[in-house]
């Protein structure tokens, strides 16, 4: 029996199975060794990184408060250390504002790190290019515009969006003029990321290129309309009015999203001249548009508008009913007695529920 187990079996199938078992054992041992080696290497690398950060962090913190050339250590050497330094510098920049940020920008120049940063832009590794773009964003130096602009068309969405952020930091108005015309074709630029860019650039920078893009669009409005909320309401209003007036409110069109954005934009403006246009959308078939119109009207409503919002308490859509109740409770000059009377006279049970909830939330119990 023992001899049988220690010698190779004669049956070829069993012999093959035994070879497989041996190969599996070797492979398992190799994977285990790989795990241990990789873990050890990662631990050592992490320890070196932590030591580097511990050495540099106090200098960066001190320099962000008072620049002191005498106590500054020599600039980091080697590719890895330079990368660690730039990552630390970017992380600190994220936490700082105003003059502290400017001082750190100055430090980068004094250490001669601008050259390595620009060098990273040519790196094949995307994460190195991203580190460089992050640094250039904090520097906000318009002189580096030509170096960054080509990366706006990078096929890597993360790189192109980081380039967009850097350009916005350098010159918001010009950057948005470059970015917005690309929104339609760059489907990999997710809308929330674009909204964050608009937020960074500011309304003034967004308005002109965005409205030019919307006005130029043929047929269906593209996805750029989703950014309308980030444009200056006063500048966006003429386009929004024209767009809403062209398509009657009761027509179910493909551009519901665009109309929703236009209604929200007019809501931001709070211009009483838009009241009639907004009211027309209270009868829209789309609950989203009724909701947007209601929200826009709420922003310019007065005590006399109880009659305007009350019928919406019986709207078939839950969200519209709740929004109508919230609007009624928030009307200036409307007191508990008025709301209680309204609650008692309401025939619609769902409307009553909505109003009761809004009163409780608004402290009108």
């Amino acid at each position, binding site marked *: 029996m023992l001899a049988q187990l220690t010698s190779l079996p004669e049956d070829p199938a069993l012999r093959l199975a035994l070879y*497989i078992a041996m190969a599996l054992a070797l492979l398992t041992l190799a994977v285990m060794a790989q*795990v241990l080696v990789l873990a050890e290497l990662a631990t050592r690398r992490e320890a070196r990184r932590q030591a580097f950060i511990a050495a540099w962090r106090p200098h960066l913190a001190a320099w962000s408060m008072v620049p002191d050339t005498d106590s500054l250590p020599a600039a980091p050497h080697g590719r890895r250390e330079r990368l660690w330094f730039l990552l630390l510098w970017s992380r600190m920049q994220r936490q700082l504002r105003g003059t502290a940020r400017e001082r750190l920008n100055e430090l980068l120049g004094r250490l001669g790190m601008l050259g390595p940063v620009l060098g990273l832009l040519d790196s094949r590794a995307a994460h190195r290019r991203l580190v460089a773009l992050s640094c250039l964003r904090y520097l906000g130096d318009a002189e580096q515009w030509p170096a960054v602009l080509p990366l706006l068309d990078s096929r890597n969405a993360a790189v192109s969006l980081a380039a967009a952020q850097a350009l916005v930091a350098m010159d918001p108005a010009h950057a948005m003029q470059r970015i917005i015309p690309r929104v339609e074709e760059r489907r990999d630029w997710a809308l929330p990321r674009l909204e964050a860019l608009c937020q960074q650039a500011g309304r003034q920078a967004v308005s002109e290129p965005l409205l030019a893009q919307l006005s130029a669009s043929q047929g269906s409005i593209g996805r750029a309309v989703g950014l309308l909320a980030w444009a200056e309401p006063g500048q966006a209003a003429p386009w929004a009015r024209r767009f809403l007036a062209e398509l009657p409110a009761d027509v179910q069109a493909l551009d519901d999203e665009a109309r929703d954005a236009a209604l929200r934009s007019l809501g931001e403006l709070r211009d009483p001249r838009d009241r009639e246009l907004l009211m027309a959308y209270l009868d829209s078939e789309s609950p989203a548009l009724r909701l947007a119109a209601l929200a826009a009207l709420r922003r310019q409503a007065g005590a006399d508008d109880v009659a305007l919002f009350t019928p919406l308490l019986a709207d078939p859509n839950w969200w519209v009913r709740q929004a109508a109740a919230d609007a009624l409770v928030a009307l200036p000059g409307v007191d508990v007695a008025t709301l209680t009377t309204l609650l008692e006279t309401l025939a619609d049970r769902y409307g009553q529920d909505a109003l009761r909830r809004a009163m409780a939330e608004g402290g009108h119990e």
Partner: protein
Amino acid sequence: MNVLATLAAIDWIWWSQVFFIGYFLLLNGGYLALNLLSMVSLRRYMRQRAELGEDAPYLGVEPAVSVLVPAYNEAATIRISVLSLLQLQYPEFEVVVINDGSKDETLEVLIEAFELEAYPEPLRRTVPHQEVLGVYRSRRYANLKVLDKANGGKADALNAGINAARHGLFCAVDADSILQRDSLLRVVQPFLEDERTVAAGGTVRIANGSRVRGGFLLEAGIPRSLLARFQIVEYLRAFLFGRLGWSPMNAVLIISGAFGLFDRERVMAVGGYSTSTVGEDMELVVRLHRYHRERRLAYRIHYLPDPICWTEAPEDLGTLGRQRSRWQRGLAESLSRHARLATSPRGGAPGHLAWPFMTLFEWLGPLVEVGGYVFMIVGFSLGIIAPLALTVFLLVAIGMGILLSVNGLLLETLSFRVYQRRRDMLRLFLVAIVENFGYRQLNTLWRCRGLWQWFARRKHQWGAMKRSGQWGSE
């Protein structure tokens, strides 16, 4: 007579051997392929993570989220759980706790701890659930709401939560889940990156042996209990290559009920959680696949390898056995109910790859495994299978099991390195070997029991879990 003669002439033993060996090859080949796929997608993910930075980016335009916490007899831990949820790093979110007719003081604890007051919240009935007895809001936390409802099970509680939620995305969280402060911010990323996303889930890890304070994980560690250690290796296998491998093909069939983010409108469109299954988390995901594929709607279901949720693993055989039986039953219910996903020409990767894989190796796997053990034992006893053949087959089977577990540890080392001490890694290697002698077989038996419960259609109930309660102590 001819048929009987033909049957008698078949060499059953030879064909049985072919069947078991063929199944074994298919099973392990499938898992190895999945393992390779996971390695590729994990590498890609880690590179992207390095590109975007290790911290979850905060854009300021993240969509608001309703965090739904179904609770049944959670009086011991609910206060800490809710407090930790209220401290999540996220721009705008609400926490909706649904007390599903608890028999203990869960509601009383909540009322006292969070100064709840009754509140006339009108609830829509978009998805069905048992009667809601009361809605409460907190005087201390404006974004906390509690529903008290008649007992109807976890799925029923989640449905009530979906109806009460005010935001477009909802995150289903188990009351005993231990999160990281940026868990929500991480799991929302797929919704920001890809507008087609309808659901996203992340890796669930074992919290036993880790340092937890105030409902948040401070430091991961290895538990003393061998049973909990077995589960660490199992979870690494199940999540890091069991699910990650399917994600690039948009074929993830399971998002853990412990932590998952969903598009509320889409979930309502498919009818919410099913109350007639114990595997409501998997059933919902499979139904979402089917709904979108049948209607040719663009959608993505994402899986994140980030460890964003930690859970307390059972440390006694009884609780663990019941949990595994329930999971197996849930799997069988979900797959059998949506068999049409596999037969439909629009089934795509979820229907034509993931469904058959799960059916063949996860649903029917325990039965074949038990059949294999019986065949070997009987064959060996009767002298049909030679001792050498039996030994060699067992060596290959166990060797394969160990290799797959060790590969799970390799993926962990290549990615998040939650267990950084060499001693911990050596312990996990040992566990990867030891689990093949007894624990794996026990698991197979529990899963067979789950299949029997599915077949006998036993009544559904909340899975009772013995809690150590240590999370609340620090």
